[in-house]
């Protein structure tokens, strides 16, 4: 390390990014480029930071692969902060292997954590879970451990494991506290607050009741038969029948559940499922077919019996029927509720689930996107929609522990 690099690194470590930049602003040797990149990233100049880190990585000699790998990790971290997830995971995996081979375990783990967070961000939850499970958090510096726990909390929340999420968040808090990074502590606090916000409504005969995520989870885990208009499905305990791809069946299930323990007459069912106010015999025939399909799908949970006017839902055993709805009404709220599973949805799948046209859904998504409530990845036919992270997907940069010099 030379004197200006050392002085610049010292300024950076003291939080003086401008001071760090000033010292190496005119230098183009790889360690200087790396320091400039890191300083720029800390100043929020992400595109410039990426470019500098890329140039730094290229500039290090073939035998300086450790320094180069650290630059690759820093660049990946910046890309993640920019929510640019288009890059190939190969370079990052190679960098991780190089760091591991050189005994730089903290940065190798950071590379793998970035890869896991990237999977989480693009809605590949199973792969993200597997990648996170392989990380040995004990070996991580506290700031990285906090981010790993935040990612774990996010995954738990997506699958409604609220207790596990709380435990992860408690560990994240403890790690952020040790790391003494105020921004990280704030993000953990924000994630914890998300647990206390209304996540859904329980529709009752005489009104409705807002529910927090843990209350939703408790309801789903209870003995009750839950017709969930957020995730579009019917379930009780461990049994879950997704109906997101069967909008007509879901509309029927919801109508029957809302009327429970009473019945619903045929005209009303036809109106809500087929959206027509002038039913004829063909509609009645179709209703019989659709009720038959629903009956078959939910037969492990409930029976659907014919009455004089229409049909009635009879849950098996002595259980209640509960209807869950998104926290507010409207297409947008329904979209957000659907996306809350954290998976990546195509526009057509969302349109199908909501029984709306693709154009309607597209319009609602564009409005939600501009409000920052949904995210899109990919383009054209490959475009997918995702909910923004619940557990505050950390935006602070965790750049490699050792600067890419020496």
């Amino acid at each position, binding site marked *: 390390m030379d*004197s200006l690099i050392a002085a610049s690194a010292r300024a950076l470590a003291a939080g003086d990014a401008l001071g760090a930049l000033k010292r190496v602003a005119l230098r183009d040797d790889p360690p200087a480029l790396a320091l400039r990149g890191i300083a720029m990233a800390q100043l929020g100049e992400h595109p410039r930071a990426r470019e500098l880190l890329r140039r730094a990585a290229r500039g290090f000699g073939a035998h300086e692969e450790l320094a180069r790998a650290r630059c690759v990790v820093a660049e990946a971290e910046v890309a993640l902060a920019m929510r640019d997830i288009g890059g190939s995971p190969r370079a990052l995996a190679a960098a991780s292997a190089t760091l591991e081979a*050189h005994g730089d375990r903290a940065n190798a783990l950071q590379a793998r954590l970035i890869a896991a967070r990237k999977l989480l961000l693009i809605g590949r939850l199973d792969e993200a879970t597997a990648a996170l499970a392989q990380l040995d958090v004990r070996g991580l510096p506290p700031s990285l451990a906090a981010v790993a726990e935040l990612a774990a909390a996010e995954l738990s929340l997506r699958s409604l494991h609220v207790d596990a999420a709380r435990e992860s968040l408690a560990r994240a808090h403890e790690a952020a506290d040790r790391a003494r990074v105020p921004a990280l502590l704030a993000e953990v606090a924000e994630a914890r607050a998300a647990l206390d916000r209304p996540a859904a409504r329980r529709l009752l005969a005489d009104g409705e009741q807002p529910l927090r995520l843990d209350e939703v989870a408790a309801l789903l885990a209870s003995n009750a038969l839950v017709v969930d208009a957020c995730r579009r499905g019917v379930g009780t305990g461990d049994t879950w029948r997704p109906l997101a791809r069967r909008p007509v069946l879901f509309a029927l299930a919801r109508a029957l559940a809302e009327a429970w323990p009473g019945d619903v007459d045929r005209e009303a069912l036809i109106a809500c499922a087929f959206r027509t106010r002038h039913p004829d015999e063909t509609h009645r025939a179709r209703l019989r077919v659709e009720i038959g399909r629903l009956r078959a799908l939910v037969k492990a949970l409930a029976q659907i019996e014919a009455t004089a006017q229409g049909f009635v839902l009879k849950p098996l055993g002595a259980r209640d029927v509960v209807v869950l709805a998104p926290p507010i009404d409207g297409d947008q709220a329904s979209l957000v509720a659907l996306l809350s599973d954290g998976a990546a949805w195509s526009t057509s799948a969302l349109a199908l689930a909501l029984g709306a046209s693709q154009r309607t859904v597209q319009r609602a998504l564009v409005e939600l996107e501009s409000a920052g409530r949904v995210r899109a990845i990919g383009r054209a036919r490959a475009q997918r929609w995702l909910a923004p992270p619940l557990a505050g997907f950390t935006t602070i940069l965790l750049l490699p522990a050792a600067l890419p010099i020496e």
Partner: protein
Amino acid sequence: MTSSKTGSKNSFQATVQAAEIVREYGPFAGADNVGGVTHDGQRVWAAVGAHLIAFDPESGETTRTLDRAADAGTAFDGTHLYQIAEQRIDKIDPVTGHVLASIPAPGHGADSGLTWAEGSLWVGQYRDRKIHQIDPATGAVLRTIESNRFVTGVTWVDGELWHGTWEAEESDIRRIDPKSGAVLERLEMPHGIGVSGLESDGAGLFYCGGGGSGKVRAVRRPKATRA
């Protein structure tokens, strides 16, 4: 390993042995990076970024701290300390800690090692793999020796010019011919242990800064091997 890159003739003569680390000092409180070391006859001085510290090599106790920017090499001329800070070399009174004079560093901030010998300062220029001999009054470059590795610490002892190298996780302490730059002798540091500053104690030891490890290491100097 690197010898093949230097002129073939000299490199084959270089004797190579593993560096024998006798003792480790530090890391020192409030210092996570050692950029330079020197020896004033009694104490070892280490440049640790925001200040210079002196410790007793017997006890390892820190005996003195000067609040002076100390980013890279350190030297002692018998009276004063010289310290590379950013793009300059400060001449420091070790008693008061005052900066008495400053000259520009020859590498404009790309400088690493520093030593005093025979009325000149010798400065390593890290990634440029050079050692400059400069006039301590003006900073004028008197001559330049090329190395084939990144140069960190520089020291003279008994008429021998030694310098530390640190490049891509590999580090050594090497004696070179001050005229040709040919490598005469090399002490290889264990893998992953770097040399970020070098000073002889005038007797049987070298003190080496350990960079980001925050340590100073004492390495045994081989008995004179000159033929």
